[in-house]
């Protein structure tokens, strides 16, 4: 078989797993801000105010046309300047030895994925049947009530598969944060391998963990969607998806 240090591969697994919480934190915060951005931007697109709508579309198009790597590096180089200008703001002390690279990575990831998730928000809102708006009118709900009580819950369920996809993409995307000095799982693997130059073994460990986590999330979200979408199962039976 291959010339691999199997003992190191097994003994290194816990070390690499120790980097997983950092990766999950990075994913969590990025997803949170990305969804906040997507809701705001999606709302602006749906609001039909031409100038806001156009500017959101221009921003999103630009974000989508530029590699995540470039965005991460841009934030990485820009964060010292920004952190310096916030010196003394709300008790924040700028310290050149502790530059907030984690925050920079979160910003880059959130902006990048926020642009993609905006489309999910918009298309999910469009996917809700027009008749539901009329139903809200018919039972005397105001427009606001109709949107918050009827439309958004349905749009949220519709958006779960796409959101799960982007969440997994984001989880994988956080591996790129290793190039901007964020100590997440891939960086942990890299550091642990440096002593004996056993990089391949450490990277295989990391790959196995990423694989397990992504497969687990996919499975869990499938179950979750089935549970939470109970009130839409009626229509599920009539619509057969084109792709499996």
């Amino acid at each position, binding site marked *: *078989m*291959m*010339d*691999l240090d199997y003992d190191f591969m097994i003994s290194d697994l816990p070390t690499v797993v120790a980097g997983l919480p950092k990766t999950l934190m990075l994913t969590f915060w990025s997803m949170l801000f990305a969804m906040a951005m997507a809701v705001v931007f999606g709302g602006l697109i749906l609001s039909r105010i031409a100038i806001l709508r156009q500017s959101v579309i221009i921003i999103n198009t*630009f974000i*989508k*046309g*530029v*590699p*995540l*790597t*470039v*965005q991460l*590096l*841009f934030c990485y*180089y*820009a964060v010292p300047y920004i952190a310096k200008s916030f010196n003394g703001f709300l008790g924040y002390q700028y310290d050149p030895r502790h530059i907030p690279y984690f925050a920079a990575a979160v910003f880059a990831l959130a902006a990048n994925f926020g642009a993609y998730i905006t489309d999910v928000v918009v298309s999910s809102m469009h996917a809700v049947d027009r008749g539901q708006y009329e139903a809200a009118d018919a039972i005397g709900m105001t427009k606001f009530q109709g949107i918050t009580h009827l439309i958004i819950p349905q749009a949220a369920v519709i958006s779960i598969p796409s959101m799960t996809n982007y969440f*997994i993409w984001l989880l*994988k*995307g*956080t*591996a*790129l944060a*290793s*190039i901007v000095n964020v100590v997440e799982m*891939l960086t942990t693997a890299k550091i642990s391998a440096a002593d004996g130059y056993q*990089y*391949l073994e450490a*990277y*295989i460990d*990391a*790959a196995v963990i*990423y*694989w397990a986590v*992504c*497969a687990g999330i996919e499975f869990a979200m499938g179950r979750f969607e089935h549970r939470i979408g109970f009130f839409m199962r009626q229509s599920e039976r009539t619509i057969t998806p*084109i*792709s*499996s």
Partner: protein
Amino acid sequence: MPTDLLQSVLPGLLRQVPTTLLYWFAPSAIALLLGTLLCIVRVGKHRALYWACTVFISFFRGTPGIVQIYIIFFGLPKLLWIVHVDIDGWPAGAYFIIATSLNLSCFVCEVLKGGYLGVDHGQIEAGKSIGFGRFQNFFRVIAPQTLQVSILNLKNLEIDVLKDTSVAYTIGAMEILGYANRVISNQFGVGQLWILGLAAIIYFILCALLELGFTAASHHMERHGRRS
């Protein structure tokens, strides 16, 4: 942007555009072939091959591209050394192309599978009924219609691949972002944000051109269906 920086950096960045396009085109071409083969297995009836492909695809979809690139970069020489093939002298770009091809073919397979399942089964029977053989049926009936259904998803994949060529610099392959990074470190960070902004604009233009190309292609493919 300071004009002297523009004059000194822009030509160098533009000289790397062909490399970036190579890192985009080579995986795309290989993945179209490999992805089609995977797709044939995935919609076929051979159980053992089906499960082997499913695990393969699950791995490449469930792990970050950068980890795959690292594993190929460190692992492929070791793997080929078992059969006494020495590839240590290969350029880093070759490893990037191999890793990206494997990764992309899994995504292409899924997209094509979706497209294939979207093709009306009557079309395949119609092909058989007018006397097409298996290959004729594949190239004249199944492949064009599958491509037409999946072209929009393929476009998104290709744009992602074009952007992901920027990851190649992490294993030392030189392309647009790799060059930008080298200039930044040579200048000790002077004008780093301008240089990255310039690289971003070049990537944006390349993506826009690719998008236009795919839109034209999909219009061309739909030319028969538009009448109905």
